[in-house]
């Protein structure tokens, strides 16, 4: 039996700012994970990733990141994505300081 597909979002770093962005279902890049499109099927995820990677004038290093459902949208499944979502733990910089930490 094939393994169950873990839901994913597409994330990358913005070309100019370098900060973390997520692909939305309307094909825009959002700074907020809550607005990310959650991909629940592997073939769809791979297709959307190819589309995202083609947008090299907007972002760098697009990839699929595991998420799990939370009360206000997707939440990171791995601690690395937690840090990308929040910012560094030693200084109040990054998304946590910009008010973009979600959910």
């Amino acid at each position, binding site marked *: 039996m094939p393994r169950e597909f873990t839901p994913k979002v597409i994330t990358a770093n913005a070309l100019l700012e370098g900060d973390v962005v997520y692909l939305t279902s309307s094909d825009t890049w959002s700074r907020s994970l809550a607005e990310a499109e959650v991909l629940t099927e592997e073939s769809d995820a791979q297709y959307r990733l190819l589309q995202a990677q083609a947008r090299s004038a907007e972002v760098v290093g697009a990839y699929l990141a595991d998420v799990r459902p939370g009360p206000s949208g997707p939440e990171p499944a791995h*601690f690395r994505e937690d840090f990308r979502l929040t910012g560094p733990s030693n200084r109040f910089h990054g998304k946590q300081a910009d008010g973009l930490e979600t959910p």
Partner: protein
Amino acid sequence: MYQYTDFDTAFLAERNRQFRAQVERRIDGTLTEDEFKPLRLMNGLYLQLHAYMLRVAVPYGSLDPAKMRQLAYLAERWDKGYGHFTTRTNIQYNWPKLRDIPDMLDALADVGMHAIQTSGNTIRNITSDHFAGAAADEIEDPRPVAELIRQWSTDHPEFQFLPRKFKIAVIASESDRAVMKSHDIGVRIVERDGTRGYEIWIGGGMGRTPMVAKQIKDFVPRADLLPYLEAILATYNRLGRRDNKYKARVKITVHETGLDEIRELVEAEFPHRRTAFSGVDQEWLDRIEAAFVTPTLTAQDPAPYQTARAADPVFAAWADTNVTPHKHADHGIVTISLKAHGATPGDASAHQMRVVADLAEQYGHGDIRVTHAQNLVLPHVALTDLPAVHAALRSAGLATGNIGLASDIIACPGMDYCALATARSIPVAQGIANRLEELKIEHDVGHLQIKISGCINACGHHHVGHIGILGLDRAGVENYQITLGGDASESTAIGTRTGPGFAYDEIVPAIERLILAYLDLREGPDETFLQAYTRLGMAPFKSALYDDKARAHAAE
């Protein structure tokens, strides 16, 4: 301090002009990321977890007040008001924007600085003894040779695409304050029968496969240094493995080929290289040496220093820990700790950088060093000026008296910033330092080096920490392995793993148990942690780590 020639200035201006155009072409879409990435890495620009990171070279860790003030300016103008000093004695900015990088590089060029070869598979920043020119035990100031190697290696056309990055350190004393034996090539200036030359070490390194460098040549005459280095690099460039990133460093080439065979290959290559050197490099070295004259230090009355020591125990304790004897007895070498308890190791605010620049100008003959342990040094301060220096440092939060103590921790940026990291380092360092401060034991514990890396690449030098900590991702959770018995000094040794790792919330208590166990086990205050470990071996420390944990667990 070496001052740029017209050639250097023009070279850098042209390089910066090229990179500005490359950034523009990346932004307008002419260059893809695949095309741009090697270009940005050649100029020190990384893309990390939350932002771009610009790594600026500080050759052999030497700065002057103008350079330090410009670093402060960059921090305020284009970053978030601080910079991070690294174990390669460089400085990193964690939050620059892509569009601003060309302006940052131009601002650096204004003070003779750049970010070239701070990344990529090239010869990286040349490091040296941070006490160079001031240490009582040096044969000569090693920095002119480091500068010669810097000039030779910068944009050297043959060595821009090495199998992997390549790190060189130069020292000039028996004591090793630059972790020389953990470098791809270590150069030690020696004297034989009244003649100066170089002892050459090869194949040291940390990372996934830590190795201590081996001596490939016991004496290279002065005029043969660059051709000999070139012969080594050429041999490595040909033999080094390009099929596997983790086997591409010269330490693996030496290990797989064998030191004797490598030596023969280098010796066979050497004559071809030697004939290409007409001696112009030695003329350059003479010119460079003239730029590194130790300042004329006038005799100073140390009486006010002794009076201040007697009057102020905090000052006396700081001086005991942070001031090293200078070759002139009425002067001292001041190490400024960037390790305030609970702070991020190696971070300095723009204000702190300016305070250090001012102090260097007023009391320190304009000389500032960055150490591989992520601290700063004023190498030439009269003892009589120390009370004033201490007071100024204190008002800037820079007077922590912990150099060489357990809270003087090396920590890489870890997963708080680094895209390669597998776990965090900084909060572990903060946690250990804060706990030591609560317990008020670190002066009793004495010399103890704790070094933390957030991944196997070992930027935090954990392999050579008396206590080394390596952060890993174990099944999606941060996990920390401990090694003991590493040594970063001239008696370089790689630490040994204690056993299973510890979770994020267990690692600080585990280190506390180790330190308390040492206090119980040592023969007296003169026996350091490392000496006690060498005498007793792993067993009692392992017991403190794991048996106590098991007992605590059973008692819950």
